[in-house]
């Protein structure tokens, strides 16, 4: 592509982007209800008032995310390995693994959170923690372990059987082969989809607010209820986006790098 052609392409891209976005902006701002929407959702004064508290509450989202993610990465790998156990003796374990994954991928996350968050403390067992945040984290771990184990499993299955055959032919046991040969290759391949699930989890930490834990969404609800203004929701949304967009771009970058590498290896 020549320089002139490249400039022409860039100009067209800028122009079409401007047209589309200006059109959208005009469409929204000329809607009959726009003045009211602007007042209730985009009030700068309200934003400044509510933002610091919501940002503080958002730290709880980050904390929930980090704790849950650590457990999910370990449990999901265990579940994937269990579903991959060889031999007829392991059938009951494989069945349990499949049942677990099917169940927790099938039930809406908010239901799992509600059942655990309201149900477990209601048992009134004195060794059961009462913290809603604790039960929210447990619920997220249960649900996301099911999803992430599928990602790991796809990775394990993408490693060619000849790799395992080579390891076994050298006298390595099933576990040694899995640990040294299969899993390192499997995990490397699924890093992009794993990060994708991280992004989903980061957003779903807001569901824990449903139990009463004051995280960013709950805090913005409290503000909205006190002021009859929804600008606090926008503030919470911006905080989530500020964290998930870098994660998403990082994932894209990893995928692109991986593709470049494989193509380079193929030539």
């Amino acid at each position: 592509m020549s320089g002139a052609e490249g400039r022409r392409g860039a100009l067209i891209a800028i122009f079409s982007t401007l047209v589309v976005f200006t059109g959208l902006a005009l469409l929204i701002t000329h809607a009959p209800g726009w003045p009211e929407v602007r007042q209730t959702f985009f009030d700068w004064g309200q934003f400044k008032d509510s933002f610091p508290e919501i940002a503080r509450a958002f730290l709880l989202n980050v904390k929930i995310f980090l704790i849950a993610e650590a457990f999910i990465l370990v449990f999901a790998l265990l579940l994937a390995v269990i579903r991959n156990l060889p031999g007829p003796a392991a059938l009951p374990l494989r069945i349990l693994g499949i049942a677990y994954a099917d169940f927790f991928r099938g039930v809406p996350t908010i239901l799992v959170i509600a059942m655990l968050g309201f149900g477990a403390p209601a048992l009134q067992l004195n060794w059961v923690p009462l913290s809603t945040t604790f039960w929210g984290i447990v619920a997220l771990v249960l649900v996301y372990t099911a999803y992430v184990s599928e990602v790991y499993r796809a990775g394990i299955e993408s490693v060619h059987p000849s790799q395992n055959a080579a390891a076994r032919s050298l006298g390595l046991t099933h576990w040694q082969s899995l640990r040294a040969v299969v899993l390192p290759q499997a995990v490397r391949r699924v890093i992009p989809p794993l990060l994708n699930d991280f992004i989903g989890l980061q957003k779903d930490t807001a569901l824990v607010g449903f139990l009463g834990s004051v995280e960013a969404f709950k805090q913005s609800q409290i503000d909205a209820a006190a002021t009859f203004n929804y600008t606090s929701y926008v503030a919470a949304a911006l905080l989530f986006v500020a964290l998930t967009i870098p994660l998403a771009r990082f994932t894209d970058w990893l995928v692109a790098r991986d593709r470049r590498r494989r193509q380079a290896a193929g030539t």
Partner: protein
Amino acid sequence: MSEALLVDGLHKSFGTLEVLRGVDLAVDDHQVVCLIGASGSGKSTLLRCVNLLEPIDAGRIVVEGVEITARGVDVNRIRRRIGIVFQAYNLFPHMSVLKNVTLAPRLALKQSNAEASQRALGLLERFGLADKAKDYPDSLSGGQQQRVAIVRALAMQPDLMLLDEVTSALDPELVAEVLEVIRELADGGMTMVIATHEMSFARDIADRICFLDEGVILEQGPPEQIFGAPKEQRTQRFLERIIEAGRM
């Protein structure tokens, strides 16, 4: 002379396809046996069965006097004594050459890292790969990769080596370096069973040639006899086709 390998009435099917239909084979210590035959005649399957990578349907396999197909044998222990090298190398792409070679000695033989590395470097040196120890498999040529795969199998100090068409995936100009390694092993007295399409190499290196046809060893004997005066019509036809294709 003792028997390194004895295969007795070996049957193996994949679903309804019967690949091995009663194979009998005896290999003495320090002997080199080459398996020849058309693709699909069962050469690879036979080797994979001897390494217990494929469960067998009937018959028995005895290695150094131990029946390895008996119930309750320690499969991992047996595989450590039988090296196998595959057509597609099957090196571990996430490990350096040195790590590829030292992995099994460290994990299966419980050698220390230092001991395994020292032995591995010695072997790599012997086969002209010392300068590749830190490289990753994808950066090596096919011939180099296959030589690393042979070294990886040798690092376990096996009693018996099985080579499954180890030059078939290589560009023609890379075949010689791999055959040279195999020749050196033969000269060193390694017991080997080699499935191959390299007829002149087989004639050169083998103590005995076995012609496999439709899942049985149809004819076997010294190379001069099999290549010079094959008794079976099917052997004759196979060799004629090979000569026509310019492969001998």
